[in-house]
C-alpha cells in the first residue's frame, strides 16, 4: 500500500482530526488574507494621502533680516522680494510638482460691450459694484482657496503659466451675467485712468463650497470679499493690468511636493541653491495636516501589521501544536510503519500529503470567504468596503508561505519521534 492511499485513508477515516485541522487552516487563512487585504488598503490610503495631501513649503521674505524704510504709509521693510526667476530655480528641484504665488488687486470687470458686470449683491453704485477681488496666479489650482476646498472648479480649467490673458470666475457671477467658459470679458485695474483694459477669456468657472459664514474674507463684510465675487487671472494678464505700477516681485510663494515623505530633503536641496541669498528668505514647511493624518494612518498601519504578524505567529504556533499532538498520538503508527520497513522519508511524505489534502480544500474556501470577512474587518479599521480587496496575489502569497510553514510544522512535529529507533518507539508504546 503506497503512501498516497494511506494518506487518503487517514484523512477520511480520522475525519474528526481532519475537520479540526481543516477548520484551523481555514480560520488562519481567512484571518491572514483579510489582514493582508486591510494592510494593502491601508498602504493604498497612505499612498493616496501622500499624493493628494497638499504638503508644501512657503518661501517668504525675511523682514527680520532686511532694512526698514519709511514713507507716507508709514515704515516698510526694504527686504528683497521673490522674483519669478527665483521661483523657477526653486521649482526645478526634483520632487516639486507645482508652485504658486499671487498678487491681489481689485479689478473692475465688464462685458465686451463695455457694460460693467455687477457683483452678486450690488449696492447700486456702478463703480463699486463692478469691483472684483482678483488674484494674479502662477497656478490657481494651487491657490489656498482651492486647496482648502472653499472653492471648487466646476467647469473648464485653472489659470496657470501656460495662459496669457485668461480668467476664472464664479459660477454665480457667470450665471448672473449669462457667461460661460470660452466667453471673453474685459478687466481694468483702475477705471477712468491710464490703466489698460484687457480682454480676458473665461477658461474656468468655480463653485463656492465654503459655508456662508466662512465665505466672507478676513477683513470686513465688503461685498467684494464675498468668494463669489473673487476672480483668478493668469500671472501674465495681471502683469499687463498692473503695468503702470512698480513690479517689485512677490512677498511669498508656495511650492508643492509630490511625496510628503521627501519634504525635508527637498527643503534642504532648495536651501542649497547658491544664487538665492537665503539670509533674506524664510522657508516654512506646511505639513501639519499631513503629519497629523499621516501619524494617525501610520498608527493604524502599525496596528494592522502587528495584528497580521501576531495572528500568523499564533496561528502557526497553534497549528504546530495541534500537528505535534496529532503526530505524537501517531507515535505507535510510526513505530509500526518503521518496523515493517517503511522508510522515514516515506512516513514524513505521507504526513505532509495528509496536511496538503486538507489545505487543498481549506485554502480556496478561505480565499472565497476572506473576501467578505476582510470587508467586514476592514470597516472596523475605518476602511471603505470597496478598498479592502483580497487579491489572487494575496492568495498565492499566503498559499505558498502557508505550504512551506505547514511542511516545516510537520517536520518539526515528526523529528522528535522519528529520530528514535523503531524498537525504542514500540517499547515506549508498550
Amino acid at each position, binding site marked *: *500500500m503506497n503512501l498516497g492511499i494511506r494518506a487518503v485513508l487517514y484523512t477520511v477515516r480520522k475525519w474528526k482530526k481532519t475537520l479540526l485541522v481543516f477548520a484551523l487552516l481555514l480560520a488562519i487563512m481567512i484571518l491572514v488574507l483579510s489582514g493582508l487585504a486591510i494592510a494593502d488598503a491601508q498602504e493604498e490610503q497612505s499612498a493616496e494621502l501622500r499624493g493628494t495631501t497638499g504638503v508644501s513649503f512657503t518661501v517668504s521674505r525675511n523682514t527680520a533680516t532686511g532694512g526698514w524704510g519709511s514713507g507716507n504709509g508709514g515704515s516698510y521693510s526694504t527686504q528683497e522680494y521673490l522674483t519669478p526667476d527665483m521661483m523657477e530655480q526653486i521649482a526645478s528641484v526634483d520632487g516639486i510638482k507645482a508652485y504658486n504665488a499671487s498678487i491681489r488687486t481689485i479689478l473692475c470687470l465688464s462685458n465686451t460691450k463695455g457694460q460693467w458686470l455687477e457683483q452678486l449683491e450690488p449696492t447700486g453704485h456702478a463703480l463699486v459694484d463692478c469691483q472684483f477681488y482678483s488674484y494674479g496666479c502662477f497656478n490657481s489650482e494651487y491657490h489656498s482657496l482651492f486647496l482648502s476646498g472653499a472653492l471648487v472648479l466646476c467647469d473648464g480649467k485653472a489659470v496657470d503659466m501656460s495662459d496669457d490673458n485668461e480668467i476664472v470666475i464664479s459660477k454665480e457671477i457667470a450665471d448672473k451675467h449669462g457667461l460661460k467658459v470660452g466667453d471673453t470679458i474685459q478687466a481694468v485695474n483702475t477705471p477712468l485712468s491710464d490703466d489698460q483694459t484687457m480682454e480676458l477669456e473665461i477658461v474656468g468657472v468655480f463653485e463656492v463650497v465654503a459655508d456662508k459664514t466662512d465665505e466672507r474674507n478676513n477683513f470686513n463684510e465688503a461685498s467684494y470679499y464675498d468668494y463669489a465675487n473673487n476672480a483668478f487671472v493668469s500671472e501674465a494678464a495681471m502683469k499687463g493690468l498692473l503695468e503702470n505700477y512698480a513690479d517689485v516681485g512677490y512677498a511669498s510663494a508656495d511650492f508643492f511636493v509630490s511625496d510628503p515623505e521627501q519634504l525635508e530633503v527637498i527643503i534642504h536641496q532648495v536651501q542649497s541653491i547658491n544664487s538665492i541669498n537665503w539670509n533674506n528668505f524664510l522657508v516654512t514647511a506646511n505639513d501639519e495636516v499631513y503629519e497629523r493624518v499621516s501619524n494617525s494612518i501610520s498608527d493604524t498601519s502599525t496596528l494592522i501589521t502587528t495584528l497580521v504578524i501576531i495572528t500568523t505567529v499564533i496561528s502557526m504556533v497553534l497549528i504546530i501544536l495541534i500537528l505535534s499532538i496529532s503526530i505524537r498520538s501517531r507515535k505507535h*503508527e510510526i513505530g509500526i510503519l518503521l*518496523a*515493517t*520497513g517503511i522508510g522515514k522519508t516515506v512516513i514524513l511524505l505521507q504526513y505532509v500529503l495528509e496536511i496538503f489534502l486538507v489545505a487543498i480544500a481549506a485554502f480556496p474556501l478561505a480565499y472565497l470567504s476572506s473576501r467578505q470577512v476582510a470587508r467586514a474587518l476592514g470597516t472596523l479599521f475605518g476602511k471603505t468596503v470597496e478598498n479592502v480587496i483580497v487579491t489572487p496575489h494575496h492568495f498565492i502569497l499566503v498559499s505558498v508561505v502557508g505550504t512551506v510553514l505547514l511542511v516545516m510544522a510537520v517536520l518539526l512535529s515528526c523529528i522528535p519521534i522519528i529520530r528514535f529507533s523503531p*524498537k525504542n518507539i514500540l*517499547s515506549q*508504546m508498550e
Partner: protein
Amino acid sequence: MNIMELQNVQYTYDNKKKVLKGINAQMEQGKMYAILGPSGCGKTTLLSLLGGLDSPSSGKILYLGEDIAKTGLADHRRSHVAFIFQSYNLIDYLTPMENVALTSKLPSLPILEQLGLTKEEARRNVLKLSGGQQQRVAIARALASDAQIILADEPTGNLDEDTAAEIRAILKDSAHKSGKCVVIVTHSNDLAKEADVIFRLRKGELQASDRLDGISLKRQ
C-alpha cells in the same frame, strides 16, 4: 543453510547495563526457534536486533552472510523480516485487509480467510476485532510478506488457550511447510515445545538446546 547469524553481538542499555554479552548463534530456514528466559533478560532486545529494529552495541548480525548494518536496517526490515508482536501493532485506521497490504502486494483476503477471518471481519476496523482476531491479522501481515524470517514476540501472550494453539500451529507450518525461519520469544512452554531449537538467554548469554532440553526446561 544459515539464513541469520549472530557474531559476538553485545548490547548495552544507556552505556551502563550490559544486556547481551557476546551472543553467537546461527539460524536456518525451515526451522522454528524459541528464545526462552526470565523477564528482562534481553529476549525482546535480541529479537529487535535480529529484525533490525535496533543496532547492537558491538558485533555483527548477518543475513545470508551480509552484515545488515551495512546493507541497511530499513532494507532488512522491509525485505527480510516480518514481525508478530504480542500487542499486535496494527494500524488503527486501516482494515485487516489494508494492514496486510502494508507488507504485501498480493490480495490479502485469501490469507485472512485462511487464518479464520470472515470477509466482513476482514473489512472491519481492526479495533473492532477481538484480541485473537487482531493477532491473526498481525500473523497474516507477517505471512503475506516476502520475508524469509518471521520474528514473533510473545505471539500467544494475550490469547486464550484454543486460539494460542491455532497460532502455534500456524507458526509451525510457516517454518516447516513454507520454509521460513521462525524465531519466537516466549514464556510459554507449550509454544517452546513446538520449536526445533530452543535458545535460553541467561545473564546475557545464549545457550542452544534441542527440543528435549526444551521439555526438560518445562519440567524445571
